[in-house]
């Protein structure tokens, strides 16, 4: 399946930065993910982990640096059928009713040609994706009648229907109870066995922790840890909003509106 040119990393970001309205969100990120890896992207709210995934999928263009998927620069990448994406959502419902079958079927579009009806293999893929998340027999149900956890599973099935080689999941565990987490872990475990590369953004890993090969922890738009999954205690420590040894905030970052003169005096004092 893989040709000679594709032995390199599946996802690669080189010196990637993103700023939104002048505010830096990602700062000089270097990240490469190899085929078959199960990578967890962890970090506190606002650490830039979702933005990093959005940069990898082209939803948020890099303000500097390069992003590559399967060795091709994102701007030239056309092989979207190889990518699966589970966006961060609380609900899969829109303004018009839609059945489970239809929502999952829309995940097959990346492999379907324009103006052609769904082929037999398309229908099989949709059926298998629905079965993989344990919703067989619910194909005709309206999406709005499902519980939050079931809707989340529909969104995962939608990504699976395209039979991706690389799957991005943005916080799939948000608002999902333990039983649903375990069933999700089962689905992702099977994908991992098939050799699918998985990039998972998560706040907490829960039942998915045993699957993780590599953990990347972010804070303030930078990667602060890249390697094995730290123990719960270390993880908790590194996710904390502030650093303990930073007793005094940096002068250049924090405006002292209340006491600008005192700050200047203390700076002058340092120099004298």
């Amino acid at each position, binding site marked *: 399946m893989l040709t000679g040119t594709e032995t390199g990393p599946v996802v690669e970001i080189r010196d990637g930065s993103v700023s939104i309205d002048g505010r830096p969100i990602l700062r000089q990120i270097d990240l490469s993910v190899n085929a078959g890896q199960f990578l967890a992207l962890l970090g506190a709210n606002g650490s830039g982990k979702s933005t990093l995934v959005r940069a990898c999928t082209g*939803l948020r263009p890099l303000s500097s640096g390069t992003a590559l998927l399967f060795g091709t620069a994102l701007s030239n990448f056309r092989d979207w059928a190889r990518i699966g994406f589970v966006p961060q959502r609380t609900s899969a419902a*829109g303004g018009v009713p*839609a*059945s489970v079958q239809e929502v999952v079927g*829309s995940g097959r579009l990346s492999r379907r040609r*324009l103006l052609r009806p769904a082929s037999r293999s398309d229908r099989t893929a949709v059926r298998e994706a629905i079965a993989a998340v344990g919703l067989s027999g619910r194909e005709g149900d309206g999406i709005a009648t499902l519980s939050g956890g079931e809707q989340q599973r529909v969104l995962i099935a939608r990504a699976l229907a395209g039979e991706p080689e690389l799957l991005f999941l943005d916080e799939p565990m948000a608002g999902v109870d333990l039983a649903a987490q375990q069933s999700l872990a089962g689905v992702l475990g099977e994908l991992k066995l098939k050799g699918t590369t998985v990039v998972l953004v998560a706040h907490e890993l829960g039942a998915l922790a045993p699957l993780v090969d590599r953990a990347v922890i972010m804070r303030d738009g930078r990667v602060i840890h890249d390697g094995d999954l730290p123990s719960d205690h270390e993880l908790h420590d590194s996710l904390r909003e502030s650093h303990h040894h930073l007793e005094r905030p940096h002068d250049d970052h924090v405006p002292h509106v209340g006491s600008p003169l005192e700050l200047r005096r203390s700076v002058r004092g340092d120099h004298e």
Partner: protein
Amino acid sequence: MSELLALDFMQRALLAALLTGLAAPAVGIYLVQRRLALMGDGIGHVAVTGVALGWLTGNSPTGTAVIVAIVGAATIEFVRERGHAGGDVALALLFYGGIAGGVLLMGLAGQNAAKLQQSLFGSLLTMSPADLRYAAVLSVVTLLLALCLGPQLYAVALDAEFASVAGLNVRAYNLLVAVLAAVTVTFAMHTVGLLLVSALMVVPVATAQQVTRSFRMTMVAATGLGASAAVGGLMLSAWLSWEFDLQAPPGPTIVLLALAGFVVMWPVGGWLRLRTRRLAPFPAVPGPPEHVPTGMGHAHQHGPDCGHLAVPHEDHVDYVHDGHRHAPHGEHYDEH
């Protein structure tokens, strides 16, 4: 009544109503899906300027209306995508600009109010064969595009981010929906008028989704309802004026008939949903465990003077232990 149907202008009007009734909900469903139900209304207001521009410059009002409506729809889409200053505020600006510009230009062109009213509320019975050809071609093209590109348009309307990662050109498809809506507005101008066209795009969809569970069924039911309302409304208005000499304009009659459909369907939908919920079996949830022994190694024997707070509970005494209660049970204690 059969004499009425034999009239040339009546046959033209019926065909126009049928095509409009089919095509308008087929486009409107994508607007409703994206929660942009009022977009058709905005485009209708902008198209008033287009019609007036046609009269002022001596061109065909329908031609200028289609151009101005497409420009307006693209502008709405652009402003919405950028998200500056709130999409609804941008829509409101276009609404007012469109209607004020239209009325002003129409005054400058020296047109009377009757002509303005025709484009605002429809003039099915004054359609010329050329008007009908134009409306027929546009509505058939619109209907075909809305149906054949259905899977793509549906995916983009459901979740633009997912569609983008699936390789669909989200901006192009959104623009296509906006242009289709603009075209629908102009060919529906004769049927229900610019101010009421949005109703024919939205109301049949709202009615259909009371009882449907899938997008495909909603599409089929909405186009059917739209066509029935358009043809039925036209027949009703013609019959009223034929039999009772009542001046019921066709445009408002069509819209009110569509709304009546919604009013009838709404309680039906509510009843169906209630019935589904009642028939659904309760999920098998294991009850709370009745007997939870305390962890191993509870060597401590609770007693009246062991230091733990004793709480009388029914036929025995519980002891408060590290924030939970222990109840004696044979040789060990149970967690309460």
